[in-house]
C-alpha cells in the first residue's frame, strides 16, 4: 500500500511552471465546491461509470440551512480529474481547491476491493492539503461479506449494481452538506479580519477570530512563495496587503458558501485595499471575484445544469459541441439579460457592461505576471463567455484575441485543447472563419514537429471540421449548384491540400484520393495551369495507392464524405445521343395519321396540348431497340499538359436495364476536342434515361452526371426503347461484270449492286438475305424507289414476291434468296436530228420522200425548237443586249434537256430497293426495319434504229419495215431479225434491214372507223395501237459474238406517219383486181402488149361493220420515173374505155362492188395503176345538210397497196 502511494505521488513530477488551464470554467464556477469523481477502471465499465457520473451530476446543488436559519444554495462542480498544480492555486482562488472526493469502483473479489480502497486512499493523500471529505462508491455482490482494509478510513457506499443505487443522490447531497459546513467554518474563521461584516455575524465571529486568528496570514499564489524571502512582513504596506488578500479570500469563501451579496462587499473592499498597495495580481483576483459574484447575483439560474432528457443515441455534431462540456455556454448568445428586479436587489453588483470592464481590468493585471498565465487565460475565456451570452461578440473577440499570445508552458495536447476551446467560443459568437482557423491550427498542432506523438487521425478530423468556416462543403454537387462565387478559393485550396496530406498520412488513401479529386474538381477554375498539372500528377500518385470510386466514404466518426467526380478531366462537351444507323432504325409499320384538321398548319393545337406538356425536355424523337447497340457521342478535351488515359468510359443510364460497353481513349496533351463514342445495349423495353457517363482517369472513377455539369444542354436524355427487332443482312454475289464500289463510310453499310447492261440485255441477280439478329424475320416486304415511274421501273427491275413470302419466316441465322431480274430497258429509236441542215444533205426518208419523214420529229419540234431558237439568237448577234449569264444558263439547260433524249448515250438507272422486315416482339409492337439496297444499273447502248420506214410487201397481209440500224457498241454485233435472218455489224456500223411484218388487223383498229370524228387523243391511241403492233411483231435480237451477250431490241414507241400507217394498217376495203378475168396477185409480174386492150376489173369489198356512202372508186394510171416524180398525164400513152372513176352510192357492210373498164396502152413501158377508194364517211346527210363542203370531215382514201404495176411490152 505504501509503495503504491509513493508511485502515485511520484509519477507526475510536480512542476510548478507547468499549468493546466481549464477552458471549460465559467464565472459561476467561482461559487462552486469542487469535487473529484474518480473512475476506478478495471471491472467498472466506462458505460456504467457514465451512468453513475450522470447520476452524481444531477445533484448540482443542495440547500443548506445555516446557523442563522438562512437557506443557502450551495453549488457543486464535479471533475473527473484534477491536476495537483491547479490545487496549489487554491489560496488565490478558493474554488480551485478540491474539497471532495468520490471514488467509483466495482469489485468481485477481495483483491479488487483492496485495490479500490488503495487508490482511494492514495488520492486522498494526493489532495490532502485541500480535501475535506470523501466517499467511496463500491459495486459488488452483496452476498459476499467483504470488508474494506483496515487502513481505509473513508465512508464506503455499497451497491449491487448501477441500477439500484437509489439513494446515491441523497448520499452525494450528504457529502455536499458536510463539505459546506467545513467551508462555512473556514469562512467564519476568516470573517473576523474583515472590516465589513453584518452586525450579527460580527458579534459572533469577532470572538472566534480573536481567539484563533491573532495574526493575519499572508496568502500567496504558488509562484510568489519563493519571492517572499527578504520581505519586510511587518511593514505597513505588507500588512495592508495581507489584509486585502484575506478579504479577497473571504469573498471567495462567501461566494462558495452561497452568500454572494456578502462576497460582493468583500470583493469591493478588497479591490480598494489592494489597489492602494499595488498588489496587481491579487487586485486582478479581487476584480475577477467581483465579476463572478456579480454574474452569480445578476444571472441566477444560469448554473451548470444537467440536461435530464438527453438522447444518448444522437451524437454531438462534430465541431459544434464537445461531449461533456455542458454549461450555460450552451445558451444562445445574447440571451443573457438581468431582470430589473435583480438589479435593484443588488445595488453593489456590477452592471453587465461593468462586468466586462472589470474583467478587462483583471486580465490586464494578470498580464503583468508571467506566471499567472493560466489564471489570465481562464479569465479571458470566462469573460468571453459572458460577453457572448450578453450578445457582445466584438467584446468577446477582444477578450479572446490575445489568448494565444499568453505565455504558457503547454504541452502540444493542451495547445490543441486551447485552440479547440477558442474555436468553440468563436463558433458561439458567430465568427465561423476564426473558429475554422483555430480548428485548423489545432489540427496542425496534432502533427507539429514538437508533438512527439503525431496523430494524423485527429488532425484530419479537425481539418474536416474547419471546412465549414471556409464555406466548403465536401459535396461537389452543392458547389456546382450555386455559391460558386462564395468562399475564398486560395484558402480553400490550401485547406484541401492540407486535408489531402492529413488523410494520406492517416493511412486512409481512399480519403486522400477523394479529397484530391474534390480539390481538382471544384477548384479547377481557380488553379493555375501549373497547379492543375501538379495536382493532377499528385492525384495520379495517390490513386495508385487507392483507387477513387464514386461511393460515399463513411469515416469512423460517422461523418460521410460524399463522392467527388472529375468532370473537368477530361472536359466534355456536346453530349449527344445518336440515332441508330439508317438501316437499323425502327420504323412504324403503320404510320398513324395525325388529325391535323383541314389546314396544313394551324396555331391551334387540337387536344395535343396535354401530350406536349407531358413530353419531357430531353426526350429524343427517335427510338432505340432492345438488344441493339446504341451510341452516344461526346467531345472530350484534355486540359492537362500530359497524356491522359481515360479508360472504362461507360454510359450511366437508369429506368431500364442497360448494358454499357466500356471504351477507352488516350488523349494527347492539351488537345481536343476528340469525339468519343460511348455505346451500350438496352436490355429492356421502356423509357431509358441517359444521365451521364462514367470515366476512369488518373486512377479515379467518376460518375459524371449531366445535371451537375455546366455547359450541358440538358440534365438528362430520355429515349424510348422498343422491343427487339431482327437484323437482316443482304449479301450480293460478286458477279464478274459488276463493279463493287467501296463504301466511304462503313457504318452506313448499304449494300449496293452495280451492273452494266447493254440496252435490251437481261440478266438475273441473286441476293442472299441473312438473318443476322436474334429474332426471326416474319415479315419481309420489298419495294423499289427510283426516279423512273413505276411502270418504267418494272421494265428494268422485277422480282418474285411470292418466292420470298414462301421462304418466311426466317429463323435467326437462316438465309433466304431473292432473285432480281434486270433488264436493260432503253429506247432503241433515235430521235430526229435537231439540225435541219444535216437532214437536207442526206435523204431523210428512205423511200417515200419527205412525206414519210418520221412523224416523231413533229412531236419533238416543240421541245427542240426553243433550243434552236436560242442558238439562232446567239449566233445572229442580235441578242447582245441580253444578260449573258442568263442566256448561258438557258443554253446549258437546253443542252441538258436534249441530252436526256439521246438514247445512244449510256443511261444510268439509280434505284433504291427497300426491304422492309420485322419479326419477333418488335413486329407485335408495330415496328419494322428497312434495309436499303442501292442498285446502280448502267445501260449501254447496243443497237439503235436511226430511222425507219415502211414498204408494202408482196402480199397485202404484210409489209416491210425498213430500219436503219446502227451498232453502237465497239465490237461486232450480230442482229437476228425476222426468221433466221442475221446481219453482222462491225463496231459503230450502220446498216439497213427490212423486216417483214404482218399488217395491223382491223380488229385492233375498230375504233378508227367507228366514229368518223376522232379526237386527237383517240387518234393518238390508234397510232399507238399500230405502233405497238409493229413493236410486238418485230423481233430484233442482237448478239455480241465476242462476249456472247445478247439482248432484244424493242421498237416500242415507233411513230408512224399517216402514209406509213396506211401501209401498216390492214385496209378495210379488200381489193381484188382482175386482169382479163384473171386475178392479179399483188407484186406479181403483170405484162401486156402495147395496143392490146386489157380488161381491168376491180372488186371492192367492205370489211367494215357499217356501210360506206358515196364511195368514189378511182383508177389512176401513172408512170414513175427514177427521180420519184409521178406522171399522171398519160393521155398520149393510153386510153381507157369505160369510166375510170365511179361513184358508188353505198357500199354495204360486208358487201362488195365490182367495177370494170378496159384500157389500151399505146407505148411500152412500166405503168402503174393507183386504185383508190374514197369515202366521205357515213355522214352523207350531214354533209348535205351542212352545205359547206369544207366543213365536212376529210374523206378517207384507201388505196390498193402496192399499186398495180403493168409492164407493157412491144408487141
Amino acid at each position, binding site marked *: 500500500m505504501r509503495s503504491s502511494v509513493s508511485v502515485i505521488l511520484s509519477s507526475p513530477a510536480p512542476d510548478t511552471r507547468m499549468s493546466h488551464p481549464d477552458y471549460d470554467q465559467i464565472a459561476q464556477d467561482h461559487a462552486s465546491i469542487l469535487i473529484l469523481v474518480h473512475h476506478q477502471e478495471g471491472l467498472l465499465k466506462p458505460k456504467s461509470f457514465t451512468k453513475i457520473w450522470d447520476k452524481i451530476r444531477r445533484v448540482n446543488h443542495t440547500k443548506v440551512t445555516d446557523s442563522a436559519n438562512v437557506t443557502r444554495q450551495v453549488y457543486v462542480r464535479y471533475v473527473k480529474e484534477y491536476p495537483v498544480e491547479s490545487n496549489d492555486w487554491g489560496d488565490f482562488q478558493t474554488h480551485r481547491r478540491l474539497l471532495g472526493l468520490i471514488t467509483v469502483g466495482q469489485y468481485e473479489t477481495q483483491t479488487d476491493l483492496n485495490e479500490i480502497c488503495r487508490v482511494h486512499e492514495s488520492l486522498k493523500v494526493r489532495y490532502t492539503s485541500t480535501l475535506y471529505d470523501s466517499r467511496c462508491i463500491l459495486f459488488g455482490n452483496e452476498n459476499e461479506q467483504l470488508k474494506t482494509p483496515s487502513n481505509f478510513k473513508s465512508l464506503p457506499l455499497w451497491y449491487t449494481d448501477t441500477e439500484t443505487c437509489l439513494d446515491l443522490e441523497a448520499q452525494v447531497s450528504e457529502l455536499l452538506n458536510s463539505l459546506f459546513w467545513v467551508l462555512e467554518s473556514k469562512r467564519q474563521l476568516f470573517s473576523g479580519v474583515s472590516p465589513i461584516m453584518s452586525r450579527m455575524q460580527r458579534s459572533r465571529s469577532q470572538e472566534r477570530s480573536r481567539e484563533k486568528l491573532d495574526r493575519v496570514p499572508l496568502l500567496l499564489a504558488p509562484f510568489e512563495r519563493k519571492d517572499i524571502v527578504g520581505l519586510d512582513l511587518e511593514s505597513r504596506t505588507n500588512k495592508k496587503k495581507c489584509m486585502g488578500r484575506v478579504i479577497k479570500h473571504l469573498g471567495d469563501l462567501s461566494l462558495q458558501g452561497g452568500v454572494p451579496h456578502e462576497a460582493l462587499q468583500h470583493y469591493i473592499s478588497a479591490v480598494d485595499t489592494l489597489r492602494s498597495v499595488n498588489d496587481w495580481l491579487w487586485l486582478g483576483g479581487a476584480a475577477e471575484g467581483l465579476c463572478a459574484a456579480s454574474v452569480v447575483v445578476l444571472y441566477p439560474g444560469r448554473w451548470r445544469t444537467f440536461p435530464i432528457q438527453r438522447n444518448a443515441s444522437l451524437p454531438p455534431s462534430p465541431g459544434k459541441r464537445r461531449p461533456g462540456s455542458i454549461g450555460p455556454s450552451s445558451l444562445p448568445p445574447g440571451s443573457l439579460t438581468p431582470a430589473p428586479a435583480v438589479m435593484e436587489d443588488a445595488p453593489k453588483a456590477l452592471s453587465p457592461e461593468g462586468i466586462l470592464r472589470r474583467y478587462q481590468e483583471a486580465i490586464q493585471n494578470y498580464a503583468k505576471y508571467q506566471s499567472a498565465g493560466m489564471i489570465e487565460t481562464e479569465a479571458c475565456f470566462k469573460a468571453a463567455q459572458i460577453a457572448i451570452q450578453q450578445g457582445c461578440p466584438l467584446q468577446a473577440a477582444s477578450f479572446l484575441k490575445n489568448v494565444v499570445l499568453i505565455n504558457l508552458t503547454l504541452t502540444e495536447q493542451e495547445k490543441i485543447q486551447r485552440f479547440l476551446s477558442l474555436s468553440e467560443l468563436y463558433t458561439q459568437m458567430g465568427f*465561423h472563419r476564426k473558429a475554422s482557423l483555430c480548428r485548423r491550427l489545432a489540427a496542425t498542432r496534432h502533427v507539429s514537429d514538437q508533438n512527439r506523438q503525431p496523430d494524423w487521425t485527429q488532425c484530419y478530423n479537425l481539418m474536416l471540421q474547419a471546412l465549414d468556416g471556409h464555406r466548403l462543403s465536401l459535396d461537389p454537387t452543392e458547389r456546382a449548384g450555386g455559391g460558386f462565387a462564395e468562399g475564398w478559393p486560395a484558402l480553400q485550396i490550401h485547406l484541401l491540400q492540407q486535408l489531402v496530406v492529413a488523410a494520406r498520412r492517416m493511412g486512409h488513401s481512399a480519403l486522400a484520393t477523394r479529397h484530391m479529386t474534390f480539390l481538382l474538381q471544384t477548384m479547377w477554375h481557380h488553379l493555375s495551369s501549373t497547379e492543375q498539372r501538379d495536382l493532377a500528377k499528385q492525384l495520379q500518385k495517390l490513386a495508385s495507392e487507392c483507387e477513387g470510386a464514386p461511393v460515399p466514404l463513411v469515416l469512423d466518426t460517422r461523418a460521410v464524405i460524399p463522392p467527388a467526380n472529375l468532370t473537368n478531366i477530361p472536359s466534355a462537351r456536346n453530349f449527344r445521343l445518336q440515332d441508330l444507323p439508317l438501316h437499323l432504325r425502327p420504323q412504324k409499320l403503320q404510320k398513324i395519321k395525325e388529325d391535323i384538321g383541314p389546314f396544313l398548319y394551324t396555331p391551334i393545337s387540337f387536344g395535343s396540348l396535354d401530350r406536349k406538356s407531358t413530353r419531357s425536355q430531353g426526350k429524343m424523337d427517335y427510338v432505340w431497340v432492345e438488344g441493339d447497340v446504341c451510341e452516344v457521342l461526346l467531345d472530350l478535351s484534355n486540359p492537362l499538359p500530359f497524356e491522359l488515359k481515360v479508360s472504362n468510359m461507360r454510359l450511366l443510364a437508369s429506368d431500364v436495364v442497360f448494358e454499357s460497353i466500356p471504351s477507352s481513349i488516350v488523349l494527347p496533351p492539351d488537345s481536343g476536342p476528340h469525339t468519343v463514342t460511348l455505346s451500350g445495349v438496352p436490355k429492356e423495353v421502356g423509357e431509358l434515361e441517359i444521365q451521364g457517363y462514367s470515366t476512369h482517369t488518373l486512377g479515379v472513377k467518376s460518375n459524371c452526371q449531366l445535371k451537375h455539369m455546366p455547359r450541358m444542354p440538358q440534365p438528362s436524355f430520355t429515349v424510348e426503347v422498343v422491343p427487339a427487332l431482327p437484323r437482316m443482312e443482304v449479301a450480293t454475289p460478286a458477279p464478274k461484270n459488276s463493279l463493287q464500289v467501296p463504301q466511304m463510310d462503313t457504318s452506313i453499310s448499304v449494300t449496293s449492286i452495280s451492273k452494266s447492261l447493254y440496252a435490251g440485255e437481261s440478266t438475273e441477280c441473286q441476293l442472299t438475305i441473312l438473318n443476322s439478329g436474334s429474332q426471326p424475320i416474319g415479315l419481309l416486304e420489298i419495294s423499289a424507289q427510283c426516279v423512273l415511274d413505276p411502270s418504267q421501273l418494272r421494265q428494268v427491275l422485277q422480282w418474285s414476291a411470292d418466292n420470298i413470302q414462301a421462304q418466311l419466316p426466317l429463323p435467326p441465322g437462316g438465309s433466304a434468296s431473292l432473285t432480281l431480274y434486270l433488264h436493260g430497258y432503253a429506247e432503241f429509236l433515235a430521235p430526229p436530228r435537231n439540225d435541219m441542215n444535216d437532214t437536207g444533205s442526206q435523204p431523210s426518208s428512205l423511200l417515200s420522200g419527205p412525206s414519210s419523214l418520221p412523224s416523231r420529229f413533229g412531236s419533238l419540234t416543240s421541245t427542240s425548237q426553243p433550243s434552236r431558237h436560242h442558238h439562232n439568237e446567239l449566233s445572229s448577234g442580235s441578242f447582245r443586249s441580253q444578260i449573258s449569264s442568263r442566256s448561258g444558263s438557258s443554253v446549258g439547260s437546253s443542252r441538258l434537256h436534249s441530252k436526256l433524249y439521246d438514247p445512244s448515250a449510256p443511261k444510268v438507272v439509280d434505284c433504291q430497293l427497300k426491304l422492309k422486315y420485322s419479326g419477333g416482339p418488335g413486329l407485335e409492337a408495330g415496328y419494322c426495319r428497312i434495309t436499303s439496297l442501292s442498285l446502280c444499273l448502267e445501260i449501254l447502248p447496243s443497237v439503235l434504229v436511226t430511222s425507219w420506214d415502211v414498204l408494202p410487201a408482196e402480199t397485202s397481209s404484210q409489209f416491210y419495215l425498213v430500219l436503219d440500224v446502227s451498232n453502237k457498241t465497239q465490237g461486232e454485233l450480230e442482229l437476228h431479225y425476222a426468221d433466221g435472218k442475221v446481219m453482222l455489224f462491225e463496231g459503230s456500223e450502220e446498216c439497213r434491214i427490212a423486216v417483214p411484218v404482218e399488217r395491223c388487223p382491223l380488229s385492233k383498229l375498230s375504233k378508227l372507223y367507228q366514229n368518223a370524228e376522232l379526237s386527237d387523243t383517240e387518234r393518238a391511241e390508234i397510232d399507238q395501237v399500230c405502233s405497238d403492233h409493229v413493236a410486238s411483231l418485230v423481233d430484233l435480237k442482237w448478239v455480241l459474238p465476242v462476249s456472247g451477250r445478247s439482248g432484244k431490241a424493242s421498237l416500242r414507241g415507233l411513230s408512224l406517219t399517216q402514209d406509213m400507217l396506211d401501209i401498216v394498217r390492214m385496209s378495210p376495203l379488200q381489193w381484188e383486181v382482175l386482169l382479163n378475168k384473171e386475178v392479179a396477185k399483188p407484186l406479181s409480174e403483170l405484162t401486156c402488149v402495147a395496143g392490146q386492150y386489157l380488161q381491168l376489173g376491180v372488186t371492192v369489198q367492205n370489211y367494215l361493220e357499217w356501210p360506206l356512202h358515196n364511195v368514189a372508186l378511182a383508177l389512176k394510171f401513172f408512170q414513175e420515173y427514177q427521180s420519184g416524180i409521178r406522171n399522171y398525164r398519160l393521155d398520149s400513152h393510153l386510153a381507157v374505155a369505160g369510166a375510170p372513176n365511179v361513184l358508188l352510192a353505198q357500199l354495204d357492210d360486208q358487201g362488195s362492188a365490182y367495177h370494170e373498164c378496159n384500157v389500151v396502152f399505146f407505148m411500152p413501158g412500166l405503168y402503174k395503176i393507183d386504185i383508190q377508194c374514197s369515202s366521205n364517211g357515213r355522214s352523207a346527210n350531214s354533209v348535205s345538210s351542212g352545205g359547206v363542203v369544207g366543213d365536212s370531215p376529210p374523206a378517207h382514201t384507201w388505196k390498193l397497196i402496192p399499186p398495180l404495176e403493168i409492164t407493157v411490152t412491144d408487141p
Partner: protein
Amino acid sequence: MAVCIAVIGKENSPKYVSCLHSENELQFHYKVHTALDVVEEKLSLAGKSNCDVRELYLGLLHSTEEHKIFGYVTNTKIKFIVIVEAANTTLRDNEVRTMFRRLHAAYTDVVCNPFYIPGDHIVSKKFEGVVRSIMCGNS
C-alpha cells in the same frame, strides 16, 4: 504604408488581394479572411442600431502583435481591407481613412468600366497602380 490590400465581394469572396511581400501571401489571406468575421459582426450591429449609414469606415477590425487590420464597406457591401504593420505607430486614423477613400474611388472607376462584370475578379492596371501607390505610402 499598408502591407496588404484586399477587395472582398458582396458574398465574401475575394475580388482582389495584393500584398507588398508576396512570399507570405497565404498568411495575409488568412488574416483578411478571419477579419471578415468582425466585418460581418459590425455590419449586423450597424443594421440593428440604425446608425449613420453614410459612415463606411469600420475602423480597426483586429490587431495582432504584427499587424493592424482596418475595414471599410461600401453601400453595395463591397469590403475593403487594409493591413498595416503594427510597428507603424505614426499612422493616424485619418490617414487610414484617406487610403480607403482612394481605394473606393479606384474601385468605382473599375466598376464604371463597361467591360467589367460586377462580381468578377478585378483585373485593372489602373486599379493596380492605385493599390501600389497606397501600399508604398505616396498618397
